């Protein structure tokens, strides 16, 4: 049998190049990590009919179906179509499965749908973000987490979005029981203290996690009607200089975040290293090369940050430079 | 209900002049406050202590028609306050509250008073009456403090020692201390009583001390109905409202703080 496969096209089509000759794995995109039971059943069917009967759950909340024969790719794409439609993935051409793989699955923790600490609907925002940025071949990682606990590890992404609420305090409902103060200290950042048996919040220290609201027995603390976000940028894993994303914007709104992430693609097109292997370069390395100000200029195009938003004019990242020295002393 | 509002507001405190301040220990002071109303030993006032707030304080002495003594411990926010400077100023008081001791019950026959620590305050008036009774030899008082430094009412103790059968003891003391060392319960078996079954007893102090003292008295043959205890509880109102002092169906501020043992034995926290 002649096997003549365009591997680059295969990869863009969201199939992994397997080390097993003649096999591939289908990468099912699941924005926000939420998939219907029906689609899950179809994934199972594909795995049983065309794969090796196993399903791999990926680090970024996607699903991989390994053991698929390369010649079965068109048939698998045909079966994936219902899943793609069910998960509402953008697609101009409905005959060939996923149209890109560069922009990675958008990750989200369960958020407010399940978690008592979730400050917003992470799933919905992740799905919206996926709609805005996919399909695209550029290597961009976006992740959403409901609160500052960062269970979704957004600090390892190019864009990490953390939910915030601005606690609203009604002193007439406060009995001075001190539970918010106690729990803020034990679970968060010690931003609260009792003064004359009422609570004072250190607005600079407060990270908007909402722990005070969760523990208040009287509804003296409530959440702001607005959902706010902290945007961390340019975190990454990898061989050269893995590092955590750092805070750039606080108390920012959803629409601004969407615009910023979308604007990033033009910045990448302009400045990506033309020699980058497979056209993949972590955005952070581009920012390191061309400067943070230039990045800001591009991504803040047509963005009007709300008045409440705090923006770091300088951002400093840490992380070890393994490409410069690699010892443990 | 509409007539309620014309009644005077029981929460409104009245100003009372501090006539004298006596310092007992590093922490404890007695304030002699101007007060001319009726009051009995064992009753208490809600006292507004500046920088601390209101606290229920037992009456530790009474000069009828003139003054009441209130023994206050410096705690919390007032740790560094020099209470000595309060003489001549006024404090806000409410009260007296509670039933207090019926002293006439104790002065005639045999009587034992066992008091621990600040528990001496509410029974000071009782002991005073026993000391002045016709039969002081039948009156036995055991007073215990944590250490020699914690002793309250030293001058009174000296007087009482001469007037009646006083046993003064401390839980612990530095080496070389000449007085009694040991818990108050240690002295109960040796109390020289003619007929414990008819003797009266008053017990005031920390809960474990009261518990074991009462057990000691019962084993000496005291009748439950002749044992009287005073309960200390948090009280924010003294008026049967705030709930903090409730034990079972009883409110210490209204029904106590002095309870007969037949009642208090069923009052479980």
């Amino acid at each position, binding site marked *: 049998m002649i096997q003549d496969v365009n591997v680059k096209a295969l990869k863009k089509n969201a199939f992994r190049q397997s080390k097993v000759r003649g096999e591939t794995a289908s990468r099912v995109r699941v924005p926000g990590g939420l998939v219907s039971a029906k689609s899950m059943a179809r994934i199972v069917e594909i795995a049983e009919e065309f794969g090796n009967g196993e399903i791999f759950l990926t680090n970024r909340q996607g699903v991989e179906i390994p053991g698929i024969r390369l010649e079965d790719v068109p048939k698998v794409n045909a079966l994936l179509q219902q899943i793609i439609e069910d998960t509402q993935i953008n697609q101009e051409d409905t005959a060939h499965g996923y149209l890109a793989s560069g922009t990675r699955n958008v990750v989200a923790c369960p958020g407010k749908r399940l978690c008592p600490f979730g400050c*917003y609907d992470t799933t919905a925002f992740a799905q919206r973000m996926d709609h805005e940025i996919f399909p695209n071949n550029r290597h961009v990682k976006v992740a959403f987490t409901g609160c500052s606990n960062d269970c979704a590890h957004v600090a390892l992404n190019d864009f990490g979005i953390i939910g915030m609420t601005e606690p609203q305090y009604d002193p*007439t409902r406060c009995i001075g029981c001190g539970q918010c103060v106690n729990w803020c200290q034990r679970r968060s950042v010690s931003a609260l203290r009792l003064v004359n048996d009422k609570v004072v919040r250190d607005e600079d220290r407060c990270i908007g996690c909402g722990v005070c609201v969760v523990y208040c027995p009287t509804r003296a603390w409530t959440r702001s009607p607005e959902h706010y976000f902290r945007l961390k940028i340019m975190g990454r894993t990898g061989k050269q200089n893995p590092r955590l994303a750092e805070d750039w914007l606080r108390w920012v709104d959803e629409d601004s975040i969407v615009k910023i992430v979308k604007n990033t693609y033009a910045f990448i097109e302009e400045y990506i290293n033309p020699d980058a292997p497979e056209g993949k370069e972590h955005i952070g390395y581009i920012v390191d090369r061309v400067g943070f100000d230039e990045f800001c200029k591009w991504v803040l195009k047509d963005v009007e940050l709300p008045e409440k938003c705090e923006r770091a004019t300088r951002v400093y990242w840490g992380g070890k430079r393994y490409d410069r020295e690699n010892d443990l002393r | 209900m509409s007539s309620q509002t014309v009644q005077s507001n*029981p929460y409104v405190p009245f100003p009372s002049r501090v006539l004298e301040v006596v310092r007992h220990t590093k922490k404890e002071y007695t304030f002699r406050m101007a007060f001319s109303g009726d009051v009995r030993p064992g009753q208490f006032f809600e006292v507004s202590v500046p920088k601390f707030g209101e606290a229920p304080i037992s009456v530790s002495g009474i000069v009828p028609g003139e003054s009441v003594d209130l023994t206050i411990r410096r705690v919390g926010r007032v740790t560094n306050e020099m209470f000595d400077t309060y003489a001549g100023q006024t404090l806000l008081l409410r009260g007296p509250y509670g039933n207090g001791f019926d002293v006439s019950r104790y002065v005639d026959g045999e009587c034992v008073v066992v008091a621990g620590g600040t528990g001496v305050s509410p029974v000071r008036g009782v002991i005073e009456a026993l000391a002045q009774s016709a039969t002081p030899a039948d009156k036995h008082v055991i007073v215990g403090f944590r250490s020699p430094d914690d002793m309250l009412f030293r001058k009174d103790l000296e007087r009482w020692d001469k007037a009646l059968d006083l046993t003064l003891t401390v839980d612990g003391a530095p080496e070389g201390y000449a007085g009694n060392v040991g818990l108050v319960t240690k002295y109960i078996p040796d109390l020289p009583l003619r007929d414990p079954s008819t003797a009266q007893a008053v017990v005031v102090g920390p*809960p474990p001390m009261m518990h074991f003292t009462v057990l000691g008295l019962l084993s000496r043959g005291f009748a439950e109905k002749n044992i009287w205890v005073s309960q200390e509880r948090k009280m*924010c109102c003294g008026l049967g409202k*705030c709930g903090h002092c409730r034990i079972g169906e009883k409110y210490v501020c209204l029904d106590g703080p002095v309870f007969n043992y037949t009642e208090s034995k069923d009052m479980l*926290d």
Partner: protein
Amino acid sequence: MGYVLDKEGLNRTLDALSEDFLLYAPVRKVGEGRFTDVDVVRYDFVRSVDDIELDAKSDYSFKEILTPLSQTLFYFTEDEVHEAGGLGAPGSPAGTADDRPVIVFLRACDLHAVRRLDQMYLGNGPTDTFYARIRDRVRFALLGCDHAFASCFCLDMGTNVAPEGWLFSLDRAGEGFACSVADDALAPAFAANAQGEKDVTPAHVTENEVHVRVPSKVPNSIYKDPLWDEYDSRCIECGRCCIVCPTCTCFTMQDVFYTDNGRVGERRRVQASCMIDGYTDVAGGASYRKKAGERMRFKVLHKVWDFRQRFGYDMCVGCGRCDDVCPEYISFAAIVNKLTDACECEEAKDE
């Protein structure tokens, strides 16, 4: 006299009542619950029936108007004490001396709870002036219950039928409303805006999913019964059960000092809970009931035993709010049943 009203008619009636009364009712506070985008239903002043949450049980009870969560009682200066003025009701802006009487919309169980509040604040020792002052201005409107909510146990507590003392009732009737007006003085306001007159009986609950048996005798041995032990670890001592309870009355005094010498400031009282740390702390440093299980015992026995010993009837009215609010899924109803089982077991032993 009973009236049938459409929504517009009812709102015109409420407008007319608002000439003479403030209206205080359960309100859905959107997004003000514990969790993101979760509502809470609690009491507030309203103007129209659109403001009133008629279909859900209020998470917090009406008692906040009678015993505010936080209430300033006095301002004190170097030599004098001034009583704080005003209704002291939550939500009424300071300085607005609106002294109209208030109509509180509540359900049958809560109207039974008023008797418990009165018992403590008007009885049990001298009258509480601050309570009486508000109480004098409070009237009631009965919200009918055509069904029980999931955690209600009003039948077993005997509180499913409202006692007397309400001015008028309010029930949904098809698209509109039905009101029984007990107070003749208010009848014209209804008559003028009604679609028609009709005999109206406020709906009341006739069936509960939850059943509770209260103990008929509690032996002292129950205090040490192991039934309380599980709450040492299960209960987090947050006190929500007491805060939402329409019959819990405890409060704590707080003094606030404006000056360094502590002689100028204000005194307020705030609602307290016997479940929360510090409830029993005395100045000397001692405290009672340190374990959560002991606190649970203290609270539960009060509701279904101690109060009855003192006043002749049970404190708990079976509204089930404590069960609804507990973040640890501790059910008061379940504890009462366990308690009663344990009491009966002890009694059987004695026989």
